[in-house]
């Protein structure tokens, strides 16, 4: 069985950035495995711009961003396999792969990088009531049909969910000749970036229905309409607020879920809140030598952060291969009030390169003018003023290493509200 130094599962932005970093650090026996017909992952269908402001100091489209990394892969001649699906990963870092040319093969990695990305939450998972006709489809799949193949899945469209994918598709379908009737959002605030609300909804006069949800799908063979209702603070429909919309497609943008089925096969510990592997500051999972980065670890909103995170994973891989390991138990991170989750979940401060320990987190709610308070074993060590926090926008904190340089303990981050005057 061929053993590679590194096998990277997923040739999207996470896998590509990790591969390039690992190569540049001197480890070249790499194999990237990608199930699609091309590298680039989900970026290839994200034809809109807004990517690269941090990474390249330029504003790029998704495919342009991907191309920067793909060009590096080609230049460095890093090996990859397309049209190849991983069927299984074991704890011993054996990988079962399949494609129509090589057949069914087993290969082994001294290290593995999980970069499988995420999938979309479905109508079934939210128990959308009504009939089950054609034309109810997740926004990402509709995006694939339109951007990769050139087909509209509807001409009179309603969108459930105001996450970025829903907003982007509202604009995209409008530009290609569809009529978008509205976007409904269960919560009282949108799940997407403000710039998308402006450029995708306001620009085209597409109404945004906050605190609303679709309560029924109608139609026998194809969808014919939906019933929209306002919801109260407990997300329950308010009687009497029914509105009917005739449509031939309902797009769902109701959440992304890290795709960790393979990780679970390898008995990698999954964090309940992120739905991704529990990792330390090297992005190493609970199984030695298996690392995770990108959307499979936690759902990102900016691919720039994915690239940085994946480079950290890459460096972690190289350190592992060199036999460098931490000797202490490490700090456990914990989300305090107002914080939904923190990545990484474990940190060995002595293993961190540079001056800062970096943590990534999401808030549970929209906040204005608050402070993120970092505590070590209950004692405050650092405060960060935040004029604006939203669940849709991942926060990146840099904490001076010397403030938390302990062998073990608990690091928590919580939201402190402004005191009322």
């Amino acid at each position, binding site marked *: 069985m061929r053993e590679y130094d590194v096998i990277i599962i997923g040739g999207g932005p996470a896998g590509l950035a990790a591969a390039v970093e690992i190569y540049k650090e001197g480890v070249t026996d790499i194999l990237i495995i990608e*199930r699609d017909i091309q590298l680039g992952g989900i970026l290839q269908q994200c034809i809109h711009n807004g990517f690269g402001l941090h990474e390249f100091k330029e504003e790029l489209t998704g495919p342009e961003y991907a191309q920067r990394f793909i060009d590096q892969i080609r230049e460095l001649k890093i090996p990859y396999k397309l*049209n190849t*699906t991983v*069927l299984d990963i074991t704890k011993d870092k054996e990988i*079962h792969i*399949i*494609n*129509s*040319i*090589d*057949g*069914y093969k*087993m290969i082994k990695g001294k290290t593995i990088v999980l970069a499988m990305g995420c*999938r*979309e939450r*479905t*109508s*079934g*998972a939210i*128990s959308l*009531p*009504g*009939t*089950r*006709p*054609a*034309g109810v489809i*997740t926004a*990402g*799949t509709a995006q*694939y*049909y*339109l951007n*990769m*193949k*050139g*087909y*509209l*899945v*509807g*001409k009179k469209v309603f969108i459930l969910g105001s996450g970025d994918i829903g907003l982007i598709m509202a604009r995209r379908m409008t530009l*290609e*000749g569809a009529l978008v009737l509205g976007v409904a959002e269960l919560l009282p605030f949108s799940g997407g970036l403000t710039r998308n609300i402006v450029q995708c909804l306001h620009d085209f006069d597409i109404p945004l229905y906050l605190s609303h949800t679709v*309560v*029924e799908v109608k139609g*026998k*063979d*194809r969808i014919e309409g939906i019933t929209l209702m306002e919801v109260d603070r407990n997300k329950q*429909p308010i009687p009497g607020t029914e509105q009917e919309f005739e449509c*031939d*497609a309902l797009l769902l943008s109701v959440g992304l879920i890290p795709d960790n*089925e393979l990780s*679970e096969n390898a008995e990698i510990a999954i964090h309940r809140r992120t739905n991704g592997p529990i990792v330390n500051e090297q992005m190493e999972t609970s199984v030695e030598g298996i690392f995770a980065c990108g959307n499979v670890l936690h759902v990102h909103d900016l691919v720039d952060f994915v690239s940085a995170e994946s480079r950290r994973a890459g460096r972690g891989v190289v350190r592992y291969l060199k036999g460098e390991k931490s000797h202490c138990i490490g700090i456990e991170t914990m989300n305090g009030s107002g914080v939904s989750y923190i990545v990484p979940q474990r940190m060995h401060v002595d293993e961190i390169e540079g001056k800062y320990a970096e943590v990534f987190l999401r808030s549970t709610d929209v906040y204005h003018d608050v402070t993120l308070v970092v505590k070590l074993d209950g004692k405050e060590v650092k405060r960060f003023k935040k004029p604006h926090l939203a669940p849709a926008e991942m926060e990146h904190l840099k904490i001076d290493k010397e403030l938390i340089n302990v062998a073990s303990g608990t690091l928590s981050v919580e939201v402190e509200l402004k005191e009322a005057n």
Partner: protein
Amino acid sequence: MLDVIVIGTGISGSFVARELAGFNLKVLVLEKNNDVSNEATMANSAIIHSGYDPIPGTNKARYNVLGNAMYKKVCEELDCSYKQIGSLTVAIDDEQVETLKELEKRSAINKVQVQMLSREEAFAIEPNLAKSTKAALLAPSAAIVYPWELAIALIENAMDNGVELKLNSKVTAIEKMEEGFKVVTDNGEYLSKLVINCAGVYADEIHNMVAAKTFEIIPRRGQYFVLDKTVGRHVNHVIFPCPSKMSKGVLVTPTTHGNILLGPTSEVVADKEGIQTTMKGLEFVRDHANTIVENIPYHKVIRSFAGLRPSSDLHDFIIEEAKDVEGFIDVAGIESPGLASAPAIAIEVIRLVGTRIELNRKDGFNPIRKGYITFAELNAEEKEAIIKVNPMYGQIVCRCETVTEGEIVDCIRRNAGATTVKGVKKRVRPGMGRCQGGFCEPLVIEILARELDIDIMDVNYDSIGSNVLVEETKIGGRSHERI
């Protein structure tokens, strides 16, 4: 002139068709939908009941027990899923314990083996039962199957043996002639000596086309949840609550493919097309499932669906020749335990056919049907070997269920093959997993377009007119023409 027309390809019609295929008869099966087995057979609990529960002396009791005993062999012949996992009927209070004792007596009359379990014995084999469980009745002969797989396999086997199938053929009129019947559909007219009515929720309307009304079908809707395979071991048996007059109650059961099924509700609906799920109905399922099983992981729901039971106002199966019309045979009111009873019902139908036509066994009838290769279940060597023979088995299309292009192409090319996205899903499962087709549907429609040699915009999700794609962009907008 045909010998027999069968109306409907649910589990009843499919078993009948396959039985008829074993004789030298000219048989035509008419199905109103764009695919076989698209109604009640597509949306039920998939349980082969043991048969202790129906009232002794009824058709239900008789055919359930007979049918249950036939299932293992039929599923082997047709290479269909069958798991005899047994059922547990749970008593959560003293009154229910008394009910269990009544059921025990009834099972003796129905000649079904059951065993009363104490609380400890029940928990030993089913750790996630509700804490309030006091006793449970185990019926070892209960089993689970994959109903639409079976119906499709039955029709395929029938067609392999000479039976003809016409889809998109809704019967609009039946005329009794001197000799036989003229059956008019929206897609052609046919003459046949006999007609067998297996039309599900429409069986009364079909009957009334040619005979005097003797029964009415009252559709009763059942709503269900499906849970992801990762929690497929939550229960090991079919778990029933103590039955009420209206229904067997909301049950919790594993499926043949490793999911968990919760449901059904029991709601009389006016609309024979009323297969909507409702918020109230799904709440009802949750509330009631929680009374018999603990800690159900609702965050792992991947789908909900609903179907209509074709219940008759006579509360029993109607399997007989119409009293006023010779040669017109009803197979109506086939609600639970219809699935379990179907093979035995078909034998009775043959007997009835034999009173009107001479039956000669067909030479060379082949009861064996080989199923699709389930790539996911092959071992490493088998996987390696099949890809060498057919590289399409090396191309994964559905990641969630590990379905290859090879299986998809196979299920399109056979008799009674798939012609739609849902048809492919029913036969080889792409779209049944956690992403519900999000990644694989675009690939499936490309394969369908290629195999059926049609424009990709004409690929339907299910019925004709349920096209997946609505318009191609940037070519002056060729819009899809609604048929």
